[in-house]
């Protein structure tokens, strides 16, 4: 009945359009910015659509071939930002780190969550709250000690350090999501198996995990994404070029005052591809994984 009220429809479509513009408009601008020749930006107002798309920025990032437009000298800026060439390699670094973190967190998180969801043992509530609440301490408060510890272990500028630190940062959330999901599985199957002599580990492997795939995928992707995006600690403990993760490389580009905007935008486009591929699955599994067990 509401659909026939034109005013209401106008408000809804207006709001939806404004929201879509706010959320996705900047991405469109980045995409455009990555393919306009630098020179067209330094007139006011900038000439955004004066020339056909220019792919030199992308070519430079992957092959190191300096675009012609940067070779001219004079009043126009001709800086080519070296950091942009690190983008593909730092995506690879981010990917390796995030993948390792995801696997470790899923293993440790499943073990702990099964115990929290199904077993009674001393310290159950205390340790659960401790693990959860530990994450509420701001990262920046732990940054300096982390740096010192990693330095003490001789692991500065290694992927191992990032993997260890991100595991700690993401484990609490994964444990919460998995615990809530495991609890939503009827306990009777579990108990029948226990009566027949199955150990908790057998139950976890043969009964709980196969039934929890949506939640495992959701928690896993969520973990991957957090590890892929983290910046502050990566900046501190992996500041070396060879261990740069994507956010650190983007940060380095962004704070370079001589940066070429076209290159920077092309770097962001390339760096966003993994995120864009993951956004939809994360959304689906996050909604499912988070709503189960949190109802009234």
């Amino acid at each position: 009945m509401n659909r026939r009220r034109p005013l209401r429809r106008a408000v809804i479509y207006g709001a939806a359009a404004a929201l879509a513009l706010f959320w996705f408009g900047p991405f469109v601008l980045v995409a455009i910015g990555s393919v306009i020749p630098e020179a067209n930006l330094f007139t006011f107002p900038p000439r955004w659509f004066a020339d056909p798309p220019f792919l030199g920025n992308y070519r430079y990032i992957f092959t190191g071939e300096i675009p012609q437009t940067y070779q001219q000298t004079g009043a126009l800026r001709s800086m080519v930002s070296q950091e942009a060439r690190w983008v593909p390699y730092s995506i690879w670094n981010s990917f390796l780190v995030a993948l390792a973190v995801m696997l470790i967190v899923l293993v440790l998180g499943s073990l702990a969550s099964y115990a929290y969801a199904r077993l009674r043992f001393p310290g159950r509530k205390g340790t659960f709250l401790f693990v959860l609440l530990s994450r509420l301490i701001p990262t920046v408060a732990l940054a300096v000690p982390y740096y010192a510890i990693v330095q003490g272990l001789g692991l500065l500028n290694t992927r191992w350090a990032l993997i260890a630190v991100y595991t700690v940062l993401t484990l609490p959330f994964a444990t919460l999501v998995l615990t809530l999901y495991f609890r939503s599985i009827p306990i009777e199957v579990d108990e029948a198996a226990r009566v027949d002599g199955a150990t908790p580990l057998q139950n976890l492997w043969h009964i709980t995990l196969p039934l929890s795939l949506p939640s495992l995928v959701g928690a896993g992707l969520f973990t991957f994404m957090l590890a892929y995006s983290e910046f502050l600690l990566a900046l501190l403990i992996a500041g070396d070029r060879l261990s740069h993760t994507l956010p650190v490389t983007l940060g380095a580009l962004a704070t370079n005052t001589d940066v070429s905007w076209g290159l920077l935008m092309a770097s962001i486009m390339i760096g966003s591809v993994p995120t864009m591929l993951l956004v939809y699955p994360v959304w689906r599994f996050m909604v499912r994984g988070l709503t189960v067990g949190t109802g009234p």
Partner: protein
Amino acid sequence: MVSRDDRGGHRRRVDRVGLLLVAPAVVIVAAFTLYPLGYAVYTSTRISSPLLEGRFVGFENYRNVVTSSYFLDAAGTTAAFVAVTLPVLMALGVAVALLLTEPFFGNTLLRAAMLLPWAIPAAAAGVIWKWVFLDDAGALNASLYSLGVIDGYVPWLTTPTLARMAVVVVFIWTQLPLVSILLLAALRTIQPVLYDAAAVDGASVFRRFLHVTLPGIRPMLVIVGVYEGLVAIATFDLTFSLTGGGPGTSTTLLAYFVWSETFKQLNFGQGAALAVVIALVSLVGIFGLLRALPADALLGEER
């Protein structure tokens, strides 16, 4: 514990193997939380930098930090940032969640892609918006100029007030997807019967929102609100790549301040003192969260 529930039979037995299962997770989290906190407290009582020899100075670092005008400035900026951002973010989150429950063309697409601003690295979000707000080549200035609203460019990121507003806008841009999605999930748990009953009673849309919707999403509002408050206090990536804390110190939030104090000024002792102060402030927030939650909200009754 065991004696209390003898009646429960096998369901009530204690499984000590549970301790073994949670041990790896708990130990690794404890090692990377308690030790660093202890380390921060230790360092905060010393003069400590890569250049000088360490020595114990008691509370001197704390005194220096708390009385420094830079710290007070950053703390004030952060407080103002949270106070402005959080209410706007939560109100918009409720509005967007309600909007997404309406049927309209493009709804599914909007939902499917909505996490994008939240999911991309915040450091990238800062760069993306720097591109939008740029003085000479920025899209915002170019659009406003084409529409005839402005005659020359507006220096968005180099005027203190405008730069602060820009940080607020970008923060909301990155966090609104998560807030909306969680509130949307909470909206779904409200039983339609309640709305029907309210409609039968002749309650207006506004009263239905006030007496059915709001109470229904209250727990989620509290959780998300506290979480986002902590996220806002810890904001770092975004100011790092968007404004670099400037112009001047106008967008220097606490996290950025700690970073620059420690790693630009190389003053580890004062950096650690700051970290301890921030951790204490967060602990207060955490206990607030605990009080707001019903005791068994997350783990449920013991099985």
